[in-house]
């Protein structure tokens, strides 16, 4: 540290002494420094923005593809499968039992995904080990009933237009936290365009502040 300081001091004294002769040399040095700075800046910035997410997230494929759009058109709205139980708790990703309300060991359609479903899960009576994009830490409490029944919100506001998707995107798991990329949002800067782009605490608080005038207190969303 002190060496660098010394150099810097020496340098400035030199330039003060040879102000006429050393001009060009110094300019070139500075120019190169600037170029180096810019190059390094750009490289690091780009790798931090483009490469870093690739390293941070591991991609996992869902057990098989699922066509939400098809199911919505065949079965009805979101709540047909993602229902609230009688006690007001949210059942989450449907269990095999719910699927079997329509499906059976006979394949209904002609997709190979359904064949996988029937062969690997229905006939073996095994639950499908879906990766859940919106899974939150254990300390988080979220009441679907309060938002759907109480506040009259729709699913899209937080979950986006999943109902219109025909395929499942790969599940990107944060290697550090173990949670899905969807919690922070696709944008690595955390910038969101839609209300459903992020699912962080601040996003909950922002909406609560707007809608109820108060961001809420600990236990409202934590357990």
């Amino acid at each position, binding site marked *: 540290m002190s060496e660098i300081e010394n150099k810097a001091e020496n340098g400035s004294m030199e330039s003060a002494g040879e102000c006429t002769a050393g001009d060009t040399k110094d300019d070139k040095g500075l120019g190169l420094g600037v170029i180096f700075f810019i190059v390094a800046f750009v490289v690091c910035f780009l790798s931090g923005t483009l490469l870093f997410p690739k390293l941070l997230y591991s991609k996992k494929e869902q057990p098989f593809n699922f066509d939400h759009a098809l199911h919505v058109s065949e079965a009805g709205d979101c709540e047909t499968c993602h229902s609230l139980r009688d006690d007001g708790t949210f059942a989450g990703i449907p269990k095999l039992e719910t699927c079997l309300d329509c499906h059976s060991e006979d394949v209904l359609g002609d997709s190979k995904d359904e064949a996988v479903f029937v062969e690997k899960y229905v006939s073996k009576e095994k639950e499908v080990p879906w990766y859940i994009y919106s899974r939150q830490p254990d300390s988080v409490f979220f009441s679907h009933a309060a938002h759907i029944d109480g506040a009259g919100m729709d699913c899209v506001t937080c979950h986006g237009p999943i109902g219109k998707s025909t395929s499942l995107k790969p599940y990107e798991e944060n290697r550090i936290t173990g949670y899905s990329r969807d919690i922070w949002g696709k944008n690595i800067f955390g910038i969101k365009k839609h209300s459903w782009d992020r699912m962080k605490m601040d996003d909950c608080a922002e909406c609560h502040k707007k809608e*109820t005038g108060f961001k809420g207190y*600990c*236990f*409202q969303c*934590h*357990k």
Partner: protein
Amino acid sequence: MKQENNKEHKFGMVIDLDKCTGCGSCMVSCMSENNVPFKEDESNKKDSITWMRVYKLTNGKSFPDTETAYLPRPCMHCAGKGGHGHSPCVSVCPATATEYGHDTGIVSQIYTRCFGCRYCMGACPYHARYFNWWDPKWPEGMENYLSPNVSPRMRGVVEKCSFCYHRYQAARDKAYHEGRNDIEENEFQTACTTACPAGAIVFGDLNNPAHKVHQIVKPDPHPDKWNRHVVGKSRNPKVFRLLERLGTNPKIYYLSEREWIRRKGDNYLDGEWDKIKNHHGSSSHG
């Protein structure tokens, strides 16, 4: 948009110390409900995590005039001076990991947000807060009985009674789902209340005159005329709060016919009690 029920509740409890038998059901029910861990030696009560703790009181007289009683102590959910939510623990938390819920009167917290400075423990006059000196460990297989409604805590954080907030959430979920705006008295009861075999604990909304707790406590709507910081004082002369004169405004009230027990509720100087006991309760309001 249907508004979430924003009627202001003030949940509180009155514990009948003449009915309390010191059996310990409330303590175990609390531990079982809230995933409280246990360790090999729990006889050092300073590091033994018991959100609900039952203290033994004695009148200090010698045989055969000795009398004893038990006093269950959950978190007091203090409303702070003047009842404005300035609870002793909340006001000192540097992490905003604990807050006063103005719509419930419940002092809430985020365990994962706590970084373990323990200021709140120092601030709490009731020793209601506990620190996790160790990571919780269960014997092989025993994690299987843990409840998903309360997240298990880790080493280095402070925890305390939550008035079983998850039961409030569950009751509200059900109410929302059934299109009701508010919950019934019996829909939200803490685990200690329902477990008490003697029925010594009465829990409910102190703001709701229809609730039993309100009817027993009869909270004074006006601040105490001797101490403006004290609000919600009971107008029942048999009812008292712990260290009431501090102005922490606890929402746990105690009921006893026995004067020596009521006197244990605070540290009185010589002669002070005789004045206080006359000012206490209904006589202070009439």
